[in-house]
Structure formats: structure tokens, C-alpha cells
């Protein structure tokens, strides 16, 4: 079953617009949402949740239209936006006491279990916690009301490698039963190369790719060659970089020809992002 579906979402700003953003996610999988700074990741997430008014398109979660069933959907949703801004000077215990009242399915035993596992102390205040601890605390809140879908904006940024690894392990545990899904945006693509099932890639307010990570990586190749070899292949490249001794470029696997005699490598998600950004002229 589709747990999340976004169709033709659009949002117009004077100098930026999201146009025809469409993607969907099945139950039981992790989707990574990638794109450069300013590509529209946060705007997409906020438009999906009605935190900014969308100008067009439909969003459905858990099989329900978001606009018509917002409150019901939010009972089963966990979301987190960069920087967890709880009252910095209030004890965690008091914050939890407020949050739990909003959720019908709040389960105190789950809450206690994760607080213990993450070594979170209820008598501390957010101002006394590290950024990793604050992220963990907001995840505990999402898990404790038995959320079926997590929408997370940059949950791993600002965390050290060990904390990120712990978080990814938790994500995989979350989807293990095959019923729950996670969409999270990030620009730390190595995190996604480990655990994501699907990748949705946005650039300049438009979706460039939305498919399984394995298919996405298979669909592109990194090619390298001498300056002379560039001309015959250049029209087929998505973008290329030249240096004093030759060039490197990104090409769709289907556009490769054996007559090219180029060095061919499998790209990383980062390579794909860098060359697309170059094509869009974002780094100039």
C-alpha cells in the first residue's frame, strides 16, 4: 500500500517555485530526499504538511487526502524539522507531559523504553542536551505515539558519525515490520547509500529522479577520458568537467557506446548531484 503520495505539488514564490513535484512511497521502506541547498527540500516537506500554503497539487498519507483528514493523519505522523525548538529551559518531563495529550495512541511503555535506550534523562532541559540528544528526544516522541510515517528534515546533519550510525540503525528497525515508512531529507548522501530503498532527487524545484536507489545508481555512469575524446561524447553527457589533462562527466548508462573507449565508473549519489547541479548552473 502507498503510505505517501504527492501529486503535482506546486508552490510559487517570487524568486523560486516548486513545480509538479510528484513522488510516492510504499509501506515498509526508507526514502531519501536529496538536493542542493535551496533546491526545495524543506519547501516540499512544509507544503506537504500544510505548514506553508501550497498553490496546487494533492498530498495523501496513509490512504487519506491530507487537506480533508489533516487531524486524523497527524495522529499517525511523526515529523521533525531541523533544529528542535522546544522550550529550552523547560524540563523534558514537562514537555512530554504536554505532547502526549495530543495523541490517542500514546504508549508510555514505548516512551520509557526509548528514553532508557538513548540514555535520555527526563529531568534535563533541552538547553542541556547535545544536538544529537535533542534529535533522539524528538524521535522518541514520534515513536511513542506509534507513528506510521516519519517525515524528517535533515535528521542526521550536525551529528557525529557514531550518532548518525545509531540513528540509521534505528530507522532500519523502524521499518523492519514492513508497515512503517520514513522519508528523510539530507545532503549527507553516504547515509543514504547505506540504508535508503528509494531516492527522490530534487533540483531547482523540480523532481529529477524518484526511483529505487539501486536503479538510480545503475542508470548513470561516470566517464573519464582525454580532451580529444570529449567532443564525440559531449552531446550525450549530462554535464562534464574539464581539467588540464582530460575530462570527466556524467552520462546515462543507456547513452554509453562501446566505441567511446572511455574509463567508466559507477557513480555515487554525490557524483550525480554534482553533475546535475553543474547542468543547472547552480555552482556558478
Amino acid at each position, binding site marked *: 500500500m502507498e503510505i505517501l503520495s504527492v501529486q503535482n505539488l506546486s508552490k510559487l514564490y517570487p524568486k523560486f517555485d516548486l513545480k509538479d513535484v510528484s513522488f510516492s512511497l510504499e509501506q515498509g521502506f526508507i526514502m531519501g530526499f536529496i538536493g542542493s541547498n535551496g533546491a526545495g527540500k524543506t519547501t516540499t516537506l512544509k507544503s506537504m504538511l500544510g505548514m506553508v500554503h501550497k498553490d496546487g497539487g494533492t498530498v495523501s498519507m496513509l490512504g487519506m487526502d491530507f487537506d480533508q483528514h489533516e487531524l486524523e493523519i497527524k495522529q499517525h505522523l511523526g515529523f521533525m524539522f531541523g533544529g528542535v525548538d522546544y522550550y529550552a529551559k523547560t524540563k523534558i518531563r514537562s514537555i512530554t507531559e504536554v505532547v502526549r495529550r495530543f495523541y490517542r495512541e500514546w504508549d508510555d511503555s514505548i516512551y520509557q523504553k526509548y528514553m532508557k535506550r538513548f540514555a535520555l534523562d527526563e529531568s534535563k532541559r533541552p538547553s542541556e542536551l547535545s544536538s544529537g540528544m535533542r534529535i533522539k528526544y524528538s524521535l522518541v516522541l514520534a515513536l511513542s505515539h506509534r507513528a506510521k510515517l516519519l517525515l524528517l528534515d535533515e535528521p542526521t546533519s550536525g551529528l557525529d558519525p557514531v550518532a548518525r550510525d545509531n540513528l540509521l540503525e534505528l530507522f532500519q528497525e523502524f521499518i*523492519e515490520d514492513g508497515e512503517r515508512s520514513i522519508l528523510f531529507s539530507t545532503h549527507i548522501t553516504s547515509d543514504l547509500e*547505506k540504508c535508503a530503498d528509494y531516492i527522490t532527487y530534487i533540483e531547482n524545484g523540480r523532481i529529477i529522479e524518484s526511483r529505487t536507489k539501486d536503479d538510480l545508481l545503475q542508470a548513470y555512469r561516470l566517464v573519464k577520458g582525454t580532451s580529444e575524446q570529449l567532443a564525440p561524447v559531449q552531446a550525450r553527457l549530462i554535464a562534464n568537467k574539464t581539467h588540464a589533462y582530460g575530462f570527466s562527466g556524467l552520462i546515462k548508462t543507456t547513452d554509453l557506446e562501446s566505441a567511446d573507449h572511455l574509463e567508466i565508473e559507477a557513480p555515487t549519489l554525490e557524483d550525480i548531484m554534482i553533475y546535475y547541479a553543474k547542468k543547472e548552473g547552480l555552482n556558478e
Partner: protein
Amino acid sequence: MEIVISNTSGTPIYQQIFEQISAQIIKGELPSDTSLPPIRTVAKELRISVITVKRAWEELEHAGLIYTMAGKGCFVAPLQPNALDEKRSQLAGEKLAKDMAYYKTLGLSLEEIIAMLKKDYEK
């Protein structure tokens, strides 16, 4: 069941899983009707995507090495000893064909290839 994954080997991860499990089945380390762990558990344990494990399982099924029982999961297919031998030579043959194509592009002669294989085998 043992699986060791290399992220730098250049062999796709689903292929690595396929090769390792098929070797364990062919050598009899995973006997007929042994149940394989759930795909999602394997993904979590190995820290890889669910879809990658699913792909490996599909390849194993396609090769006739495992079978699926709806609602119960996947099991090692009951293979007779001669069928195992057949699978063994089939899998080795496929791999060899790929390697052979590469040796030919390097311009090695059959004698050179045999000599190298022999040396490597006796190592």
C-alpha cells in the same frame, strides 16, 4: 548462514549476497528446506536496503536455489546431488565466461590463461 559484504569491491551488493548464499547452498552448508531469515531482518543486520536483499533473494529463486512459501518465507530448494553438481558447473561457467571475455581483451592466449589458472589453483 554467513554474509560478508564489501563496499569497495565493485561487485553489486545483491550479487555478493547471491554468490555467497549460492555457494553455501551448493556446498551443502545450507541443507534443503533450511529457512532463510526474513528479508527485512537481513537488511537491518547488514545495514543495507531492503530492496537490495530482495533482489538477491529473487536471483536465488530464479536460479532455482530457493523457493518461497506465501506467508512463511523462503527456504533452500531440495536439490539432488547431481542437480547440485549441475548448478555448481553452471554458476562457475557463467563467472568463467565473464572473466574469459576480460582475459581476451587483455590479449592473453589460451596457454597463458591455463598456466595462470593452474598457478592460482595450486596457491
